[in-house]
């Protein structure tokens, strides 16, 4: 091994592998030829090709962070029922396709038996998209896997059923960098205090000019503290975003007490009907409360069920609120409306109501 390291091999820069060898033969044969699809039941997609061939795909939730046994058990099921092919969705759901309708029910049963909930299709709450958190990241204020597991336990029934007005895409992010996407509902970290600086470490670890440059509000400046070069934060300017923390870990932004969770709604990446839109903050100040974050679950469910009970078919969360208005949204959910809901970032002008459109 020592030898290997002195004479290392040159990598084969093969990049993204060709998916065709990995594709179920029915998909391969009908590539680009699909005609329409329907959903015979929650968790099952039935696609029909112009060639007349058909395929049934069963979608099952996973924990994303999988151990070997979990992956192997998925492989076992795919081998037994589905010719040995499987794919994963962008939301870490497993999709197993079969060309024979009679295999659908047994496949579902096998998945369920192995502990994989079948669902996440159509107007359901699909798996929450997932970032790293305490399990692996170097800057997280919370744990993504834990929040997601806790929430998916609560929303399990909405995963295995299709009883939402439209598909619900929930996302999480474990720091304000936000590796998670926009969400119909997004659960994100929100720091509420400026970083606490470990001044004695700054000089060793941080490239000070580049830290200064990262601050979106120019709140950081070089300073000498206790005789050592360090950094200083104008705490009245600081928006507690944490952008200074990754390039300079001594700028401790995470705080067990003051790093809170906030819920955002109405983000939408698709272009169906309206253009893509960013999610908007509706409630903040929720405690970062492992292992089950009950306060977050409560608010998410409140919002989700208000949406479910009131939106029209095909309305995504944001579209529903746009129709009924924010006045009604806050009324229906009982959430408080505060000055913090009023955007104060660049371009905030466009977020003000500059019209006589009013709701009472």
């Amino acid at each position, binding site marked *: 091994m020592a030898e290997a390291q002195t004479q290392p091999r040159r990598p084969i820069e093969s990049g993204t592998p060709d998916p065709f060898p990995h594709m179920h033969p029915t998909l391969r044969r009908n590539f680009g030829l699909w005609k329409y699809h329907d959903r015979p039941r929650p968790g099952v997609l039935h696609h029909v090709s112009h060639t007349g061939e058909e395929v049934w795909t069963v979608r099952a939730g996973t924990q994303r962070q999988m151990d070997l046994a979990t992956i192997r058990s998925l492989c076992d099921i795919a081998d037994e029922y589905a010719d040995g092919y499987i794919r994963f969705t962008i939301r870490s759901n497993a999709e197993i396709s079969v060309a024979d309708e009679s295999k659908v029910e047994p496949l579902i049963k096998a998945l369920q038996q192995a502990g994989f909930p079948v669902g996440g299709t159509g107007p359901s709450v699909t798996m929450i998209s997932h970032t790293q958190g305490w399990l692996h990241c170097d800057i997280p204020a919370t744990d993504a896997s834990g929040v997601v597991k806790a929430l998916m336990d609560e929303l399990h029934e909405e995963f295995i059923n299709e009883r939402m007005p439209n598909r619900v895409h929930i996302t999480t992010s474990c720091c304000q960098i936000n590796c998670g996407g926009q969400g119909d509902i997004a659960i994100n970290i929100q720091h509420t205090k400026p970083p606490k600086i470990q001044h004695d470490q700054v000089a060793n670890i941080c490239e000070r000019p580049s830290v200064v440059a990262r601050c979106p509000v120019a709140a950081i400046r070089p300073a000498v503290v206790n005789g050592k070069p360090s950094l200083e934060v104008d705490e009245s300017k600081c928006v507690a*975003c944490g952008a200074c923390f990754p390039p300079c870990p001594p700028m401790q932004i995470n705080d067990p007490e003051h790093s809170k969770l906030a819920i955002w709604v109405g983000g939408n990446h698709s272009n169906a009907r309206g253009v893509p839109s960013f999610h*908007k903050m509706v409630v903040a100040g929720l405690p970062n409360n492992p292992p089950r974050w009950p306060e977050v679950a409560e608010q998410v469910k409140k919002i989700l069920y208000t949406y479910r009970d009131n939106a029209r078919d095909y309305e995504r969360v944001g579209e529903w609120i746009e129709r*009924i208005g924010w006045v009604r949204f806050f009324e229906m959910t009982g959430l408080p409306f*505060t000055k913090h809901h009023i955007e*104060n970032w660049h371009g905030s002008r466009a*977020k003000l109501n500059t019209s006589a*459109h009013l709701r009472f």
Partner: protein
Amino acid sequence: MANKTYDTPKLDELESGPWPSFVTGLKRLAADKPMIAGVLGQLEQSYTDRKGYWKGGTVGVYGYGGGIIPRFTELKDADGEPQFPEAQEFHTMRFIPPAGMHYSTQTLRDICDMWEKHGSGLIALHGQTGDIMLQGTTADQVQECFDEFNEYGFDLGGAGPAVRTGMSCVGAARCEHSCCNEQKIHRMLINNFLDDMHRPSLPYKFKFKVSGCANDCMNAIERSDFAVIGTWRDAIEVDQSEVQAFVARKGRQYTIDNVITRCPSGALSLTDDDQLEIDNSSCVRCMHCINVMTKALSPGQERGVAILVGGKRTLRIGDLFGSVVVPFLPLRNHEDYERLLEIAQEVVDFFAENALEHERVGEMIERIGLPNFLEAVGLEVDPNMIREPRSISYVRMDDWDEQAEKWHQRQQESAAS
């Protein structure tokens, strides 16, 4: 009295055509008014050179710091002598018309007579800010002219960094959409700020405009610093038999395509027997359905006004619309009107003390942020003030709990009351 007149071949081309010609009018005046003869000469020169030839200066009346727009000619010959000496001075006096721009012909005739005496006879009805613009007099005439108009009942409007003349739509006087007494609001507001109008000492101009409904016939939301717009809080009034009559007259398809699908909030639905269903809690009070079916629909009965602050046009940071700072203020009684005045006073006072030089109130709000402005003038935040909540997480929310508590408290209080 045969005055000297000048050839105006270019302007003459504006005498033809079906629209009333200001050139013909000017020529008519020029016969008696040398000043206008000179103005025509200078204007012809402008048309030739594609260049303006007026400059400002200082002209005023005793006791007032504004209201007159002085103009001196810059069109001089080689010796520095005015090329059109009759038009050496050409000042405008901005007088405030009756709210809603109603006139008895007697008054209008009297205005004409007074202006014939003291000025050029050229009158714009009205300037874009709503003034009677008496255009064309000399510095030595303005005091006398003002005194006569003032005795008659007219006052000068604003100019410079001052509260300006206000405007209100015809509204209650002749419009079924009116949700408030536009004239009363208009006069109350303006006449409360006459000191700030006549002795300009604000950071910059400040305009009030009043529209009786969201059609905003006064362009108040963009063209004033303080827009008052009539609206209502309860349900739209529906006369279903008139709805049916409308559908019968115009057709179902037409009704759906032009009323139902045009509602910006999807609040309308037409039943199979041509009844109109309105989801009043979604309705944004845009006026469209009421405009189109004016016989069948009317604003609700619980009426009041919304206040939007900060409209202006282009200078400095680009055009701004005013934004909602009070979603609904009922105007049922004297106290309600007092409250309106109080809000206006707070806004003007805060503007006076905190705006930078040459900064409009809208720019100031943009600079300091709406929440700070609201707090300063004693108004509470409301979701009606925003199109949507923040989508950027860059914000300090140390006091979230406190702010949330404020809201819950207010909700409880309003539920209790």
